[in-house]
């Protein structure tokens, strides 16, 4: 995949416990960790190695247990079951303040009675850094998060949502821990600032070599920044791997649907051929591989691999339909093509020209190797 491959591949496509090929000890290791609140299981039997220096992002639906997982890692919550080790030492019971980790809260948890400056200086004060040094460092951090130095003396409760988020970020960096946890730190920022701070975070990650564990709801953020992405669902870790692996080889339909838009077609095996069940009459599909033993499966085709065809022979699988919606996504355009009951999504770069035939009947399709077959 070109020059970037080495970059994104750095962390490899990991799966829990699969890090044996890497010599370094995981900085944090979870083995069979669960967390129950009364009879509700928020985190369910998770095993995961967090590697020294990696940028690990956790994504998952709301309520899937991401925050709870992070809180256990930070020492703010104790696992109901399982073990957490830090470089080989069991730390289930180590208090948050003794862990070389730091959490940027989803709620930010800024100290309302302190100025921006004193908020940022708080961890330094806890370490006993001198006042002058603290202030110098705080001003430096303010610059880093793109806040004016004059904010040093500002009442933190008069800052806007985004400003507050940046203060929280600066405060975490002031603590300077080995492992940083972020709970949606950029969610309230505008696009441009988010891009800037994403880059800043990424650079800081590279420069410092620290381990970052990151929760986000922004797929783009996860894709751009992470060495590995972990996908959670209902307290379980469903898949962990490099962004490419997660995007390109999702383990199941949930992951596929979660990390971007997809066209999914349910198929059944019939006389050695895959038949689509979702068209009026079964259509035979050309697929990249067969699934051993499975009778049913799902075919996933990302919208960018769907093509408008000039002729029926231009792709392995062909569908005919009618464009009924077109959205601009900024750099891309998304088409919704209705074929019978189904709607297919096709995404094209804004710079590409659609080889379609106006508003009439169009042919769309995809090649066998661009589809992914996953568990139904």
């Amino acid at each position, binding site marked *: 995949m070109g020059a970037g491959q080495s970059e994104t591949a750095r962390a490899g496509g990991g799966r829990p416990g699969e890090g044996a090929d890497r010599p370094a000890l995981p900085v944090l290791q979870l083995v069979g960790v669960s967390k129950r609140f009364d009879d509700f299981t928020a985190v369910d039997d998770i095993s995961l190695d967090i590697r020294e220096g990696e940028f690990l992002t956790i994504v998952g639906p709301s309520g899937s247990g991401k925050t709870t997982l992070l809180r256990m890692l930070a*020492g703010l919550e104790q696992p109901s079951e399982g073990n957490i080790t830090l470089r080989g030492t069991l730390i289930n019971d180590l208090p*948050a303040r003794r862990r070389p980790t730091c959490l940027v809260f989803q709620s930010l*948890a800024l100290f*309302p*009675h302190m100025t921006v400056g004193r908020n940022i200086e708080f*961890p330094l004060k806890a*370490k006993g850094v001198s006042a002058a040094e603290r202030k110098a460092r705080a001003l430096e951090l303010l610059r880093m998060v793109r806040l004016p130095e004059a904010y040093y003396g500002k009442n933190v409760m008069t800052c806007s949502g985004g400003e507050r988020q940046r203060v929280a970020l600066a405060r975490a960096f002031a*603590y300077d821990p080995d492992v940083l946890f972020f709970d949606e730190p950029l969610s309230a920022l505008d696009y441009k600032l988010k891009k800037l701070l994403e880059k800043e975070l990424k650079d800081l990650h590279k420069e410092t070599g620290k381990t970052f564990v990151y929760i986000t709801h922004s797929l783009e953020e996860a894709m751009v920044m992470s060495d590995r992405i972990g996908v959670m669902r209902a307290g379980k870790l469903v898949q962990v791997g490099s962004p490419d692996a997660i995007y390109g080889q999702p383990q199941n339909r949930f992951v596929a649907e979660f990390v971007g838009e997809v066209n999914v077609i349910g198929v059944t095996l019939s006389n050695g051929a895959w038949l689509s069940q979702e068209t009026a009459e079964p259509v035979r599909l050309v697929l990249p591989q067969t699934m051993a033993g499975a009778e049913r499966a799902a075919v996933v085709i990302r919208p960018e691999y769907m093509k408008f065809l000039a002729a029926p022979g231009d792709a392995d699988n062909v569908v005919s339909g009618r464009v009924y919606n077109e959205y601009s996504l900024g750099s891309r355009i998304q088409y919704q093509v209705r074929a019978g009951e189904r709607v297919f999504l096709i995404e094209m770069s804004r710079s590409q020209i659609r080889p379609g035939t106006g508003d009439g009947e169009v042919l769309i399709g995809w090649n066998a190797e661009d589809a992914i077959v996953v568990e139904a």
Partner: protein
Amino acid sequence: MSDATLGTSSTVREKQGKERQGRSALRHLSLPAGARCASPILLFMALGFLAPLLTVIGFAFAEPRSFAVFESFTLRNFAEIFNPADTVWMSFAWSLALALLTVAALLLICYPIAYGLVRVFGRWSSLVSIAFVFPLFISENVRLYGWTLFFINHGVLDGLLAGIGLSGPNVLFTPEITLFGMIYTYLPFMLFPMTLGLSMVPGDLIEAARDFGAGRLMIWREIELPLAMPGILIGALLTFVLAAGAVAEAKILGGQSVIMISHDIENAFTYSQNWPRGAALAVLLMIVIGGLSMAVMARLDLDRILGRR
């Protein structure tokens, strides 16, 4: 200031301030919401407090031992009080000193309990706080007398100790037991505001501070204390004021080993039949307590501490 001017001047100012009243959902009547909410109380206080207050001040400047309020004007009552031969300053000193000690002791005694009510006792907490409320239904005189029965010769303590061949300590009728009685009486007035204050410290802030490596002391000093300060402060002020005006403890437990200022004021109005002197003492007491309290309140601005979230 007369009650009439109080009423109008604040109304005028409030009208001017109207433009800045933006954030209220109740803003669309003629007065700003704040002034509207304050007006019943202000009216009541003008009638129920300001007027009697003026009467007392009037008495303070009336001829000693007369009832000629507003008919005579003299500074003699104050002159007598400040005369070095008059030992009434000792009563002031005792009252204020014991009140300060009471506040200090209650801060220490109540903090762990308030902390427990907010963070430790969990579902037991309402039961525990109710336990601290019940005794308040008995008049303080009776409760204080209960301590006399506990500590006195052949009382409960002595009687119990006699069972093992010991005898009770001689603690009654001293300044120390007076202080003890004050601490006992005013405990709830510190405990409940303090608990309310502590309960307003958000848990995630403490978690965050802990996560940043702050030790217990630092969390306490930098987060918990400042954020709980309004409650603590109000508790401290309340107990200070109540204690400075206290008299029953010195009478019932202390055997009047010290004379409290309220006792002197009471005497002036009873045995002495010298109302102007009593009024003058009252005015002085109010100035001293009010001044001290205002100084504290001014230095610790409630609005700022709380960030008005």
